Structure formats: C-alpha cells, structure tokens
C-alpha cells in the first residue's frame, strides 16, 4: 500500500474519530491531523525521532508525542515503524529489540545490542527510547 493511500486511510479514520469524540472535553484528533498534514507536506522526510514527532504534530509535551507514535504505528496499514534503541553516552543510537526494551524498562537489565549480541556497557535505564521511520511501500 502506498504512503498516499495510507495517509488517505488515516485521514478518513480521523474524520470518524472527530465525529465520535466531538462532545468530549479533549482529544488527540488535532495533533494527529497536524502530524498527517506534516507527512503529506514533507514527502522527503522519512526519519521521525520523538523530537520531530513532537514538533510535526504540535504536541504540548512528550506524552502526546508518544500517543502520535502509537496511533500511527499500530494495526494494519500503519504509517510509522518503531525501532527501539539505547542513546549511548557518545551520542550514538544503538538498536535493541522490542523484548529487550520491555525487559530493560521493567527490570533495569542491560539490553543486548542488535548488531553485536553483547549487553550494553554502563547501562543507564533513562537512556532507553525509540525512533520511527515512515513505512515504505
């Protein structure tokens, strides 16, 4: 499915969502729409770290940026793919798998680097995170 078709599908879903939550005091419809507009207007952007999710969707905080990452990455015909990582002290992003991420988050156990298969040295739980990529066709 092309990116354009995915955007169109999400746009229709958001119209339905806006209708359903129209009487509720707050919802994420606007930030989801902001993100979809950003993706449509910037087809050359494919890498979406959390800082970019936050600004593209005009979120008020990082919690809302998590909602954006979740909404556009789950289910069929998702727009984003999530890669879990560890932000090392030297500024590099080390890829880790999803199960390691959950285990490290819950139990503070050092995750294993995807590339080397070795546990990360000097592990600091607050340096866990993820980034997203636009799903290619």
């Amino acid at each position, binding site marked *: 499915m092309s990116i354009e078709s995915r955007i169109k599908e999400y746009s229709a879903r958001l119209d339905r969502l806006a209708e359903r939550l129209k009487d509720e005091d707050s919802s994420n419809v606007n930030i989801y729409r902001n993100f979809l507009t950003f993706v449509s207007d910037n087809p050359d952007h494919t890498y979406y770290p959390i800082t970019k999710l936050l600004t593209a969707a005009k979120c008020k905080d990082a919690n809302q940026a998590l909602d954006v990452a979740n909404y556009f990455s*789950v289910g069929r015909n998702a727009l984003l793919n999530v890669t879990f990582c560890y932000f090392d002290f030297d500024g590099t992003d080390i890829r880790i798998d999803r199960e390691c991420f959950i285990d490290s988050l819950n139990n503070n156990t050092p995750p294993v680097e995807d590339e080397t298969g070795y546990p990360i040295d000097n592990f600091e739980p607050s340096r866990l995170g993820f980034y997203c990529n636009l799903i290619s066709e």
Partner: protein
Amino acid sequence: MNKTDQELFEVLISTPEGKKKLQQIAKSCENHYNAFIDVLYARLDTIFKKLEDSRDKHFSHDEDSITGVIAGRLEEAGYIATEQTKKNGAVDLTVQLGDHKWIAEAKIAYSNSKILEGLLQLLTRYVTRDEHAGLLVYIKKNNSKMVLEDWKRYLEGCDGLKSYIANKNPEVKDDLECILNNVETTDINNFSFNSKHNLVCGSSIKVQHFCADLYFNPADISGNSSKKQRKDNAINNLANLYFEHLDSNNSFDSNKCIEFLERLFRDLDPDDISLDE
C-alpha cells in the same frame, strides 16, 4: 522546548504514566494475542477513569452513547472499534488490532439480573472461539464499590443466581448451569475483576468486568439548584428502584418512589403536560 530525544525519553521514563505508555507501545508492536489483551485492558482502565472524569455528562447518557465514547477513545489509541456489530445478534463493542479481536457487552447496573442478561448475551450468543471477552458495567447509583462486590457475589453463586436459573425456561437451564456453575473470580482492582466460565462448547473463557462509577449528585449550591440534575437523578433513581424491586422478594418501597416522583415533577403544572414530549 529544546530537549534532545534522549532528554525527552528521560522525562518520560521518570514518570509512571510515561513508562507505562512506552511499555504499551512496545507490547503493541508484538503480534501476540496475550500482549494485545494486556495492552487493551490497561487502555480500557485509563479510558474508564477518563469516563468518570466526565460523569456529569455521562450520568444522563444511555448505554449506547457511553459505549460510543469508549469506542471513540479506543480508536484514539489506534484500535478499530465498532459498535453493534452483527454476530448472532448485535455485539455492543468489537475491538480489533491487526489479526486480533475482542468483544464486549455493555450494561447499566440497574440490578444484578440486568447485568447477568448482558453476560449471558455475551456467553451464549456472541463468543465463539474467543479466549477473552469483556463486560462493561456502568454504575449510575451511589456506593459503586458495594454494587460491584454485590455483582461479584451474585456471580459466584448466591441464592439470587440460583433463583434466576430456576425461573428460566427448561430448555436453557442446562446451558445456564454449565456457564454459571462454579464461576471463579479474581479481583484486578477496586473497579474490575475477571470471571472464568465453562462454555457450552466445552472450552473456557475469561471475562473481564470493567466498571465505571457514573453516579453524579453534586451537593454544592450550583449543583443542588440545577433542575436538569434533579430530574436526571430522579429518573435514574426510579429506574434503579424498579429494577432492584424486580430482583428482590421485598415489597415495593412506595415512599421512595413518591420521593423520586416529587423530584421529577416538582415544577410541573399538570395542565402543561403534553404526551408528545
């Protein structure tokens, strides 16, 4: 906000809410049924809390409207949530994510037998190969804690349940006994528990009971003087009184009924009654 990616995650991980959301995102990426159920139940718990934050509105809403809001909130979390889906009848809520599906029936807690009707619809009409399903219970009367505990006791096999089964048609009694005999329950928190049932087909199912306390009766001056609030409360109280009476062997509490009718009709001029309204 000029924070780096790592700094933003550091802030998120330092709060229970942020940490929980990160876990949910990671689990949602997994295509396992149990992970789907875990995350769905955690999200429903959050949605029910949010629902209670707007109980001033939902107190006067009907069952379908409340379920509609829950479906909307689930869609907001990325699920495909539909209401009144056809499946041997109309299922109140169907939730899908990727290959996984979960269904639930909703009921306003007017009485234990009313809630039981919802559970029986779920277990004798809608579930097929499901391992988990849900019962959404909306409580519009005071003492929600007692209502929930009472419902759990009822389900665990009190006399009320036995008399409910005894009063059913003989052709469904065997099935009811299969489903409702020796029900095991497990508390999850003050607002939810799960029950395990043997189905007629021979397999078993776990039903998660989610309860929303939507009782709203503000005692401050503006709340107390609101005509709409008084009337909505009176209608809810009358419905509760009527359905509770149907479940009990006690005589009807006509004094209570008159009290609620007085609240409903306090400002009414009988000459203005129009049957079209």
